[in-house]
């Protein structure tokens, strides 16, 4: 293994890079302010993040046609967690493009939500603007936002991508982040690698 010290090498590359290489995009880092949004729900209401200023908000990227979203809905992973934290606002966001085969119409989505017993609002982000702003990559991909609007956790729901572990043996990162936050502690881990299907953005 080689240790490379930051030095004064390649000075010309800095200027070249500034011209040639795009930045890493608008995706955020834990500790950033959460991008604001207003999105339509499957029930036809408009819901804004700003409506919940002063509350802890959990965002869950969802796609009912993704096996990972379906498994967690079937196992009620998020539903039980939301019920355990009634003071936390839970919003699901579906960024599937309208042209993608996984896209569900509002009626289809409502039927799925009802079948799975999803009690919280599900929002449409069909053009992917909000998903891209958050850097949502997978379904599910979770974000926890504190009362001041700062992202305090981003990543996977738990440590079991394949669902091989019994639910009680899994480490639920979102539950841990909420627990830390209630105690006044910084979530640790605050960032994990999300798993699941890729978010079905349009081109």
């Amino acid at each position, binding site marked *: 293994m*080689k240790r490379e010290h930051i030095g004064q090498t390649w000075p010309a590359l800095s200027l070249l890079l500034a011209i040639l290489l795009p930045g890493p995009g608008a995706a955020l880092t834990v500790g950033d302010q959460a991008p604001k949004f207003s999105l339509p729900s499957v029930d036809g209401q408009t819901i804004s993040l700003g409506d919940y200023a002063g509350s802890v908000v959990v965002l869950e990227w969802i796609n009912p046609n993704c096996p990972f979203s379906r498994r967690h809905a079937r196992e009620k992973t998020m539903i039980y967690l939301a019920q355990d934290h009634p003071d936390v606002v839970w919003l699901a966001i579906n960024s599937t493009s309208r042209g993608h085969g996984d896209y569900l119409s509002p009626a289809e989505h409502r039927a799925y939500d009802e079948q799975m017993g999803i009690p919280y609002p599900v929002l449409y982000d069909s053009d992917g603007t909000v998903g891209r702003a958050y850097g949502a990559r997978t379904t599910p991909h979770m974000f926890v936002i504190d009362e001041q609007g700062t992202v305090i956790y981003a990543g996977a729901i738990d440590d079991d991508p394949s669902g091989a572990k019994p639910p009680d043996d899994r480490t639920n990162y979102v539950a841990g982040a909420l627990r830390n936050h209630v105690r006044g502690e*910084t979530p640790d881990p605050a960032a994990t690698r999300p798993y699941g299907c890729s978010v079905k953005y349009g081109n």
Partner: protein
Amino acid sequence: MPVTLDATPRRAPIAMHRRNLLLVVALEMSATVAWAAAGPWVQHPQVRARLIGVWNPAAGDEGLLLGAQFRLADGWHAYWKNPGDAGYPPRFTWSSRPALQDVRVLWPAPRRFLLPGDLEALGYADEVIYPVRARIQDPVDHPIEIASEIDYLVCADACIPYRDKLTLEIPTDGIEARHETDLRRLRQWERSVPSRTAAGGRSPASIRIQGERMIVRFDDLDAGAEAPALFFAVQPLFDLGVPTPLPGESLVYAVPIRRTDKTHGLPPTARFDWTLVTPPNAAQQSLEGSVEVRLKAGDGEATR
């Protein structure tokens, strides 16, 4: 007891187990033989999977070579050790008689699949054989029975997770030659595993982080006409974007880099495990290695 034969294999009765044809194949350029087998395929609409393997008792610790073979339907891919923005790599749980020791799954050189939304997947299309090196204790006087429970994901436009139990029985006697093609493919995939530069001397890579960009330079390599593709293993402190070769530079790449979390401090250093994949038939073999980079405040953060 294992049997060592001369260079001319002799015919002997074959034991049949399930759909396996058990076999003994003369190793290339070797006076010894290796026993080999292919397990039954597990079939799904998008993928079929099986274990293949060869055991050469004369080769000592390098004597056992297994392969988890996946054949994918058109448009589907399986994953590398870093799956990219979504998915996950296959996870293997091994059981065997006699017990396997020091099991090492090897990761052949991956491809990059660009997905809508500036996402990427890293893995394999059409076919992949993940080579697996392991040891068994000598002597072995009965067939080697191996099973692997594999959690894996295949994706196209959709993703399907599977959990399959693959089995393999490698005989310790008998002769058959029908699986030479499978073994050749297994060895080809093993050769496509990037070699560790540490074994050959100094690492050719150096890395410098400048705010939200990382510059990776390779020295002392034969670049060839086509720029090799650069990949990284998962780096928990940073999200890394798609490496871009810098025009006019030989083997210099720019990589978007962003901290995953700025609510915790950075450690003094971070290790970046890189893989440089050369085109087929290139003079330079694919390589992998590690660079430990000293970090400073602001690394991986926007400089605007």
